[in-house]
């Protein structure tokens, strides 16, 4: 994580980083005024890594994915960033035509609602093959053959006979597999998965997660997994970024995050989840509500609900800073983070 360009940080080699996002700010125009839904976030994604973006509704996790892919409607939306680097390309400077080369090809996306993400009047075989026809310039025969292989790969039973069937003939779990097949078609570097299992049953979800994991391991691709479910995060993520009100408040390797949830929001979130494996006396409930997009207060956006807040929290928005020796677990919190004390004191008095 490089929040400061010239810091001497020891981490895995830079060449491992496949996506580097720095200071991403996505705003929307609502009743005439621009409001930021994603507020200057920075993160990176390494090869063959699963990064989970976790947060509740309105935290900006989906918007982040759409911003990376340039899918934010420009009429009332605006994406600004210092950098959105995919390997050697800076995605920001690309034209719409060039972005189309990237989408479905080097970065693919799968969505939450398999019912609405597939075209109901085209066969699923056609839809999978379409990506290949467009991006890899195969001829029809090749594309169909490859599409069939992909359907097999995502474990759709009797794929050859189901090739010519329509989406409505498939169950939710099967449709999701079709979407994954489409996403995989061009062997992308990254798959963005936006709540892909939220609308599925528990047992189906388990199958899809297992499938995604297996495919990721086999192909060496990276996965950004957006969800609000911490259980899913624990089962699939390598690293986790917790988002709140458009900011990343904590980012860490998954074991570290669950062992030591440091940001008050992360901690509160973990304590508010009921567990099936043990009896819990009570759940922690966070008072108040998430500030709406236009009314985010100055300072730390969580301060009003925090319980630990200090005067500085209301004045200044904390930045992500590592709290461990390996510099891999970062937290944005004046109280729990690791900051230069004098800076805090100055603002406490200021």
């Amino acid at each position, binding site marked *: 994580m490089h929040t400061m360009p010239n810091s001497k940080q020891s981490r895995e080699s830079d060449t491992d980083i496949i996506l580097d996002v720095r200071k991403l700010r996505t705003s929307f125009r609502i009743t005439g005024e621009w409001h930021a839904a994603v507020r200057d976030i920075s993160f990176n994604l390494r090869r063959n890594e699963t990064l989970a973006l976790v947060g509740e509704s309105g935290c900006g996790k989906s918007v982040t994915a759409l911003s990376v892919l340039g899918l934010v409607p420009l009429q009332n939306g605006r994406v600004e960033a210092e950098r959105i680097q995919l390997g050697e390309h800076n995605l920001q400077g690309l034209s719409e035509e060039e972005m189309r080369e990237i989408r479905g090809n080097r970065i693919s996306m799968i969505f939450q609602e398999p019912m609405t993400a597939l075209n109901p009047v085209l066969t699923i075989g056609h839809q999978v093959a379409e990506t290949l026809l467009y991006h890899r310039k195969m001829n029809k025969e090749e594309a169909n053959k490859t599409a069939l292989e992909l359907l097999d790969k995502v474990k759709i039973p009797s794929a050859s006979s189901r090739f010519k069937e329509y989406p409505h003939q498939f169950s939710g779990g099967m449709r999701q597999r079709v979407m994954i097949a489409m996403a995989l078609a061009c062997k992308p570097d990254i798959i963005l998965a936006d709540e892909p299992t939220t609308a599925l049953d528990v047992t189906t979800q388990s199958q899809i997660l297992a499938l995604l994991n297996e495919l990721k391991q086999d192909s060496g691709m990276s996965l950004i997994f957006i969800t609000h479910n911490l259980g899913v995060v624990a089962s699939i993520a390598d690293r986790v970024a917790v988002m709140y009100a458009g900011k990343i408040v904590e980012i860490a390797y998954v074991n570290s995050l669950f062992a030591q949830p440091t940001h008050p929001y992360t901690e509160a979130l973990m304590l508010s989840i009921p567990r099936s494996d043990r009896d819990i006396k009570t759940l922690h*409930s966070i*008072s*108040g*509500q998430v500030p709406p997009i236009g*009314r985010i207060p100055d300072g730390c956006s969580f301060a009003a609900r925090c319980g630990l807040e200090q005067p500085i929290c209301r004045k200044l928005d904390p930045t992500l800073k590592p709290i461990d020796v390996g510099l891999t677990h970062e937290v944005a919190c004046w109280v729990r983070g690791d900051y230069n004390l004098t800076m805090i004191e100055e603002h406490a008095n200021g």
Partner: protein
Amino acid sequence: MTSNTENIPMPKSNRALFLEQMNRTFRSNKLTGVGAAIFLLVVLAAIFAPLLSTHDHIDQNILNRLEGPSDQFLMGTDAYGRDIYSRLLHGARISLIIGGVAIISAMIIGTAIGIIAGYYGGRTDDVIMQFNDILLSFPTLILGLIVVAMLGPNMQNMIIAISLTSIPGFTRIARAPTIVIRERDFIEACRALGYRDWRIMVYHILPNVLSDVMVMASLWLATAIRTEASLSFIGLGVKPPEATWGGMIREGFENILDNPWLSIFPGLAILLVVFSLNLLGDGLRDAIDPKTREA
């Protein structure tokens, strides 16, 4: 754990909400306001017809027959020397009353039937919609013809005729949202709380259907007025010497080549009313668009 209402606006009164809705309707499309204004003028003209008339509209004056527009007769005179302008104003009364009463009664009856059909579904729905489709398949004019021919040409029967032809449209318009709303959880909650069917239909379904219905009402009022004019034109309307727009056009036909103003002015009047109602209705329909509905 009470919710934070610091920066949240105060709850709005019904009056404030109504004004907001009006604002939104007329702000978004200026033509809507134009339509509303024109129609309003027509209504006022009809209400104040006796005051605004220059002459008695039935008075014949053979000496002045078939005169063109002048200072004395603003729109000229017809074959019997009657002032066209004054007849036009009184004709407006007839058209608006017949159209208005017909549509309002059709709206009440059609909406009720539509909601009942949609709410109960099944056999009831099938039977009602069959009858509805039968009514709907009659060309408006033919049905009007039949009713008036059977019952006699007067204002009351015109209203009945036009109302009958308008009911099926309202039934459909009310039935569609009813079917959607009846599946919503809050309706089930009403049943769980022991509400009777009529209460659910009147207090819970009707308010959610009303806006759809009223939008169509304004558009269909235009149709009703046209129908009335058509029936008058073929001689089945209110009997002379009462002035009706359709009747005036008919009378003017004999002299259409030499004295076109006899038919043109009533024709323009019909055009104006229908056009303004269409503008108004379209504007209302856009404003009622579900996208803007829940805010």
